[in-house]
């Protein structure tokens, strides 16, 4: 039972990591790789998306493949599945195998052929391929709940237009930095705002740069920004936070520098601000010195 939905063409820029047979984590149920796909396409472009499935079970599994449109809502915190896939997304899909039977421990290379019609509006599109175990639909007498399991592979597709909201524009809505005395780290929280209708994955470097000759410690400490590749969905904001850990001998004025790349042209967003590093041991040493001086002064006064 293999179903095909027609339409036709191929791809563009690939962001996800390459599929590698043999790297699937195994156990029970089904394993799927990759876990997400994010691509930029031009109008008329065609592509084939490869997804590897593995039946970990000791029995054959029939897997239904469904397409569900979804949105990230509440500033990327929650998912919402549309009841039906969007027509524009269905129009991308040439070749759609909707039912697979996998023997025990069998691997399967699932292919999804896409073509972006020339009439597609520039925007970010999101849908998930849902690999669902197909079980019983038999209803026994009395109340019951059937359990259906599925692994989703979200697919984010950007079709960019010209500069502006259809191209990708990200701004820093707010940024806060603070020195954490206990963990000896600089905490930062950045709110990024996506002003476009594209799915953007900002990546970059957050750095601490020695800002004064009176400071001690390394000249520069780098940390990856958004190493996990979290997305900012169209017209939404997302909070990113992390910490840059310092070595114990660092103190003084440092500059926090954030350099973010995003979009087709690797656009850059930057922000710089000062942060003062005063490690806890320095405070203790100063405290001890103050106490010693205080005691000596008091002792001197008593002797007078």
């Amino acid at each position, binding site marked *: 039972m293999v179903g095909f939905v027609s339409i036709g063409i191929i791809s563009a820029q690939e962001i996800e990591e390459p599929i590698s047979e043999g790297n*699937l984590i195994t156990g*029970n149920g089904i*394993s799927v790789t990759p876990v997400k796909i994010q691509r930029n396409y031009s109008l008329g472009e065609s592509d084939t998306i490869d997804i590897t499935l593995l039946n*970990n079970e000791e*029995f054959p599994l029939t897997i239904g493949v469904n397409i569900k449109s979804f949105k990230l809502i509440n500033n990327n915190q929650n998912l919402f599945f549309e009841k039906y896939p969007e027509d524009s997304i269905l129009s991308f899909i040439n070749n759609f195998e909707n039912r697979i039977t996998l023997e025990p421990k069998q691997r399967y290379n699932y292919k999804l052929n896409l073509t972006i019609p020339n009439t597609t509006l520039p925007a970010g599109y999101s849908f998930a391929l849902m690999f669902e175990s197909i079980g019983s639909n038999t209803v026994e*007498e*009395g*109340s019951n709940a059937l*359990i259906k399991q599925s692994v989703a592979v979200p697919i984010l597709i950007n079709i960019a237009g010209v500069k502006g909201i259809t191209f990708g524009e990200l701004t820093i809505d707010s940024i806060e930095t603070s020195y954490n005395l206990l963990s000896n780290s600089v905490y930062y929280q950045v709110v990024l705002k996506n002003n476009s209708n594209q799915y953007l994955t900002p990546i970059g470097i957050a750095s601490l740069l020695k800002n004064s000759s009176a400071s001690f410690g390394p000249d520069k400490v780098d940390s990856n920004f958004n190493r996990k590749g979290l997305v900012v969905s169209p017209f939404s904001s997302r909070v990113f936070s992390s910490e840059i850990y310092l070595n114990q001998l660092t103190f003084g004025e440092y500059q926090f520098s954030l350099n973010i790349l995003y979009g087709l042209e690797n656009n850059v967003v930057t922000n710089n601000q000062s942060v003062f590093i005063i490690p806890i041991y320095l405070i203790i040493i100063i405290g001890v010195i103050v106490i010693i001086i205080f005691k000596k002064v008091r002792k001197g006064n008593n002797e007078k």
Partner: protein
Amino acid sequence: MIVLKKKLYRLVFLHFVLLSSLIFSIKVSAAPVEFAYNQLSRVSSSTTASHSLYFVLPNGIPIGGNISITYPGSSFTFGSLYDYTDMVLEEGNSSNCSTASFIPKTLAASASGTTWGATYSSLVITFTSDTDTITANRCVRVVLNSNGTNHTLTNPTVTTNTVYNINLLTSENDSAEVAVIILGDASASNVDQINIKLNVAPSILLGVDVVTTDCNNTTQTTPINQAIEFGNLFPGIAKLSGSQYPFICIEAGTNSETGIKILIQSSRNNAVGGLVGSGGGLIASATNDLNSGLVDSGYGVRISSLGTTSLGTFVANSPYNSGVAGNVGILNGLLGSPTAIVTSTGVVRSNSNARIALEVGIKSSITTQQDTYTDTINITAFTNL
């Protein structure tokens, strides 16, 4: 006269034979080492490498004895400060170098008591005993490490594969010659190594089973059997997963550092899911304590146990994280959002024998219409976007 001469010749001959046999019996104590080899950590030209020499000494080493290892000239290069701190001398408990257990000797710059002297000079390594010994026919292991600056041991620089002989000699005249090959290739370096590069692709695993009692087992069910039959409901009495009605056992994991969430959703075509009767009646899903007398009816799920993980951690999300049986959270319908019952922000892996246990609870009221009520619970593994 002739007889006398013959006797004299016989006597001389016998003395010669006797003397020869005596000489032979004296020399029998010096012997070639029966088993010797040298393992190098690297065999490429001009690279630093540690040497592990294994040999079986037929006569062992007596008190005051020694072992010397001589490297050929213009070959291996020892650091200018190469000394006993870079060396190891060990005695095995048998003659089998493959299976022997080795006990190290204490080394110092000079021998004293049970401490052995270990020195390096002009391509010769010497181990000298004071009062300690090595038993005959025991495998001996000598490790010559290549350590930091001036304590290195570097392979010769060669442009073709070249054999070098390293000589071993003991105070008991046990001797051996060990050959090592250094690989040289004028057009390449590190010819003894193969670089391996691979990408491990991120993947997600999800296995769902329906099991009574709990999920601390490896019981598997096929999808066709994955239904919870609650049978007949009686008004005001909650039915919960337990020894009679099964739990939903979830085995999940990902090697992606983005983490994973397990979503749950009712299949009912409304915002608030529920069990729907064929006649249109509804047992609505809601976040409620089904054991409370104040709650007439309801339907929902609760994380009864997060199980255990071999990697990372799952976090049970509200309202599914109550520790009280029957205190269930809502299952949204298809017009609502699927809710994340558990989340991991990084790499995570359930143990197969201690899975996430999801309790399903259901309760009807006296006004619930008589009918057969059903729902399909969708459980989805989704990467964090």
